[in-house]
């Protein structure tokens, strides 16, 4: 599955998205991403699934649009 990255997370990963094996839940996904990018632990971010910010452990489907959103700074 493709994970879109924004803001300072683009700096962290060196690109604006990462591809990972399909994961069943957001918790599993974050676990996997932290093994690939250990610094992610020190970053604040929300998870958006299909353009909705989710809270708590959420099931994922292969076609979901997933994005990690650091604190917003528009305006």
């Amino acid at each position, binding site marked *: 599955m493709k994970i*879109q990255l924004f803001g300072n997370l*683009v700096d962290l990963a060196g690109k604006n998205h990462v591809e990972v094996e399909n994961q069943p839940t957001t918790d599993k996904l974050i676990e996997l991403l932290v093994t690939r990018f250990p610094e992610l632990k020190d970053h604040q971010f929300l998870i958006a699934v299909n*353009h909705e910010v989710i809270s708590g452990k959420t099931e994922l489907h292969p076609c979901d649009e997933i*994005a990690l*959103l650091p604190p917003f700074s*528009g305006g």
Partner: protein
Amino acid sequence: MSKDHSLFIDGSIPPDLVSTQIAKQQTDLRAGAHSIFLGQVRNDPIDEKRVHAIEYTAYEEMVLKEYESIKEELFDTYPLRTIEVFHSLGTVPAGEVSLFVIVTAEHRKEAINACRDAVNFIKKQFPIWGRELLGDEGYQWKENNFDE
């Protein structure tokens, strides 16, 4: 759902856009009040450096969804005529405008309150990020302060 959607402006928002939008509301003879907010890039000091510009990126599809949601909420809360929001993408130099909100209502109280609410919502809920460019000397990711 791309950069050319009306909400997004490539680079700075030209002051002329404000006049154009006001003129657009003048055919509405029930409109009595326009409340407008503009956010402008400051050359804030950061350590020994200064912000020369802010480079904005957005999760565009989600911004458009949040935009629909704030419009719906405000039309449900206040008797309004129209709401329009514009936000820059890309580089906006210090002294130039990156956010433009215009709310039109029959009466001033509703226009003013809805415009204030829209600005607060945009700062908190729109997935947009600003990278503060410090000349040749690097950058820093902006963070919104909700007490401002």
